[in-house]
């Protein structure tokens, strides 16, 4: 069916596969913004797909975490039930396994809330990327309500531009990494004072010419740490989705190459189970990436608090 559609439009599947994959992992462009808004201080304030996804994630985190926790606090019984029980297990795991060993017992209660916020927010943002809500809406729109894909003014069609994984956007991960950067600064300043925090960047008691080399290296190192967080999370979240789409695109590519639907179906027998397997792997990646971001933030904050040279 795709093949027939592509042939009639006059361009091959191969021409469209790359664009289609990029469109599925990147943010919707400003021309296809979900809500068009004017510029403010030279910045276009339009709501794009990833901005919408961030709002949805914030709402979901609020509903699934804040409400059960507030209900638990209000109750007279100290034993958590249902959702609060699950949240308690995760909270305890993050506090005892990630935060406490890195920042130390004195600062564990100071930094656990931030780490938990990172973990839950990234987990939900990664996880929502695995749920094809908008794609299903698009299919219903196309085949039940018979709205053509080209109808740009249709609201549901507007939602189809761009990917749903907000953490696959480098701007989102950079924003999270900037929070980490300032957390490192605040942690070091709170633990040692402002001047001592900067003094602690380099080892003490070295010959002064060494400092000419060491100080720029340490300052660059400060910037490199959030950069590592930015690249790692966004690249991992984008990579898995690209692999999935590339595998599924093989069906259309082979069908066109051999001018036969049977070739496409034959490849589907291999590519669809492989895509299903990668989807399973992606579920692990969703959890692991949220966990690694939290762990690395805890390590970096811990390095600012417990200075070793």
């Amino acid at each position, binding site marked *: 069916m795709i093949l027939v559609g592509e042939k009639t439009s006059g361009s091959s599947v191969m021409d469209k596969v790359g664009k289609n994959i990029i469109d599925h992992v990147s943010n919707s462009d400003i021309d296809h913004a979900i809500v068009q808004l004017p510029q403010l201080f030279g910045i276009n304030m339009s709501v794009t797909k990833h901005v919408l996804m961030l709002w949805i994630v914030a709402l979901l985190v609020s509903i699934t975490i804040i409400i059960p926790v507030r209900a638990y606090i209000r109750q007279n019984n100290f034993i958590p039930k249902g959702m609060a029980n699950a949240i308690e297990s995760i909270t305890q795991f993050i506090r*005892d396994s990630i935060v406490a060993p890195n920042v130390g017992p004195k600062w564990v209660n100071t930094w656990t809330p931030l780490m938990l916020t990172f973990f839950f927010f990234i987990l939900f943002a990664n996880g929502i990327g695995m749920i094809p809500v908008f794609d299903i809406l698009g299919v219903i729109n196309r085949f039940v309500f018979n709205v053509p894909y080209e109808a740009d003014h249709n609201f549901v069609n507007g939602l189809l531009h761009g990917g749903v994984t907000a953490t696959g956007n480098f701007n989102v991960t950079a924003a999270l990494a900037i929070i980490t950067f300032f957390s490192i600064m605040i942690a070091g300043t709170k633990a040692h004072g402002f001047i001592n925090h900067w003094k602690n960047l380099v080892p003490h008691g070295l010959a002064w010419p060494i400092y000419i080399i060491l100080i720029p290296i340490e300052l660059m*190192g400060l910037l490199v740490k959030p950069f590592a967080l930015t*690249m*790692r999370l966004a690249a991992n979240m984008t990579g898995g989705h690209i692999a999935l789409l590339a595998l599924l695109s093989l069906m259309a590519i082979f069908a066109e190459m051999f001018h036969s639907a049977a070739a496409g179906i034959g490849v589907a027998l291999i590519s669809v189970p492989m895509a299903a397997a990668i989807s399973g792997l992606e579920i692990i990646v969703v959890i692991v990436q949220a966990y690694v971001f939290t762990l690395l933030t805890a390590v970096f904050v811990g390095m600012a608090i417990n200075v*070793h040279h």
Partner: protein
Amino acid sequence: MTNESDNFLAQSLKQFQRFVHKAGPSASASYTLLAAVLFLGALGFYADNYFNSSPIFILVGLSIGLIIGFYELAKSVFKK
């Protein structure tokens, strides 16, 4: 039976916690090594484009990236 499986799960989780604790600094060092090379390399690339001086700044950027990356790695390896 339940006790045995609970014990096994508890032990596995404890072991996992131990691994996590040990792996944290290594993970941060490896990511920093890679990120330093990429970050400084990218800065060098853009500087070369701006000054039209290819490949001087990209080579300088990559070299400094390597130095910073290995310095951070050494810091975590030789930590007291």
